[in-house]
């Protein structure tokens, strides 16, 4: 165990020394990996945040019961009282015909036109707030309440929520596919860098094999080089995402303000570890795939 630790510490030291000897190459590799990882990382963060936003909107899910014209306010009140006792209902508020008219006049801009009508065309509305926000349960509740003879239409406007969910699912999958492709790109970048490193050390590898160095011994510093390249690349990717967010935060706040909300990006903390970790894993794998094959080809002559 102690020997194992020592061997790996030496290999890591050797890999660091090699990185220090070629600072520009190390930096460039890290930057390329960084850009490659920043794209899926940033998109993932974006989708995640839109989803969080959508969850906030979903709490507005409610059933609107438009009552028949001939249902009086008193009758509406009684019905509301009855619905309050139904399971799965959190609250019922009544909008009387007069209230509906007043509100419509205020917001629609057709106030003057309505004055021409001899009677109020608007029905009374019961707004039913469900206890839980399960789209299916909500659908059942809506159907059930709609069966009451006093109800003209039971409206459950969940379609846009479903659409948003579908769009988010689509976006999530698209990001996953992109992440897979760009992950493969990182494997190829690291693999090629390590391949060149192996070839440039052909002589050293030959001599090491001649004096009895095992493949594992020769391979180890290359694996650590790949791991470090991935780690640095992941850190660079986090930096890029952070810079992009800082640049976008002003316009994003403005946009949110226009919709009357405040928008705070979250989940950046996960990327602090996630990106370098993903980079390190891809770097290790990339060099593992490249180094084994090329090491076998280099034999003492």
């Amino acid at each position: 165990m102690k020997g194992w630790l020592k061997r790996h510490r030496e290999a890591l030291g050797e890999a660091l020394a090699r990185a220090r000897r070629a600072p520009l190459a190390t930096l460039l590799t890290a930057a390329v990996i960084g850009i490659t990882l920043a794209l899926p990382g940033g998109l993932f963060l974006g989708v995640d945040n839109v989803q969080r936003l959508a969850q906030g909107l979903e709490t507005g899910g409610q059933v609107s019961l438009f009552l028949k014209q001939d249902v009086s306010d008193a009758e509406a009140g009684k019905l509301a009282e009855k619905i309050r006792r139904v399971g799965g209902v959190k609250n019922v508020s009544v909008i009387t015909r007069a209230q509906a008219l007043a509100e419509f006049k205020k917001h629609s801009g057709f106030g003057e036109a309505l004055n021409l009508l001899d009677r109020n065309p608007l029905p009374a509305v019961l707004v039913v707030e469900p206890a839980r926000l399960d789209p299916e349960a909500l659908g059942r509740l809506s159907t059930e309440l709609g069966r009451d003879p006093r109800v003209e239409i039971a409206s459950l406007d969940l379609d846009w929520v479903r659409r948003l969910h579908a769009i988010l699912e689509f976006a999530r999958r698209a990001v996953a596919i992109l992440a897979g492709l760009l992950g493969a790109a990182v494997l190829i970048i690291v693999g090629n860098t390590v391949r060149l490193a192996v070839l440039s050390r052909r002589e050293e590898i030959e001599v090491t094999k001649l004096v009895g160095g095992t493949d594992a011994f020769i391979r180890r510093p290359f694996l650590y080089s790949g791991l470090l390249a991935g780690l640095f690349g992941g850190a660079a990717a986090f930096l890029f995402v952070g810079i992009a967010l800082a640049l976008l935060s002003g316009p994003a706040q403005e946009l949110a303000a226009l919709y009357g909300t405040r928008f705070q990006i979250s989940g950046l903390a996960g990327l602090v570890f996630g990106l370098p970790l993903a980079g390190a894993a891809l770097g290790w794998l990339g060099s593992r795939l490249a180094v084994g094959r090329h090491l076998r080809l280099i034999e003492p002559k």
Partner: protein
Amino acid sequence: MIRFNHVFKRYEGGYDALKNISFELNRGEMAFLTGHSGAGKSTLLRLIALIERPSRGEAVVNGQDLTKLPRRRLPHFRRDLGVVFQDYKLLYDRTVFDNVALPLAVTGTDPVEIGKRVRAALDKVGLLSKERVYPITLSGGEQQRVGIARAVVSKPSLLLADEPTGNLDAELSDEIMDLFLDFHHHGVTVLIATHDQRQIARLNKRVLKLAHGELEHDSHADTPRSTLL
């Protein structure tokens, strides 16, 4: 230590580098391998160091059957073998110390122990004062002595040398050969490929002469020794 029995080495294209080689080198023995260039000296050494495998025949080195040794056992086999090359095969981006330390580093030897043994080996070849310099600053004779220090630092039981004095003048050649002789006196089995007749005559050891891939002459066979080696 080395036993070859009807060994052949044929390269792709049908070229026979070695034909029907049979000889035995006992533990602690010293011998020269000679012959014109292209006679198969280097090929024979490459077979012994398992850089290449025999095409046919039986070859046993240090108790290991060379035709059967699996690839993964190769590093362990080579650790009991010191090899010296005509072109030294030093690593020029490392100091003399690090070059000599390589055979010990690959076995995970303790750094303190590495320091002791590397300095002992460098002292032996007279280069203790040069441990911090890079090999490129050394003369040919000095570089070859670094190569020898690297070959013996892990105390191998068999020392192979391929034209170790090929690039050196007479005086330096004497120094290098005397080093090999000294290791032989300390019980190391030594096999040196050379066409330097002066050294062969000077040291008066067993000579294996190759010609056109065949063992033409073995001086050991003419003068059997009474001592059991």
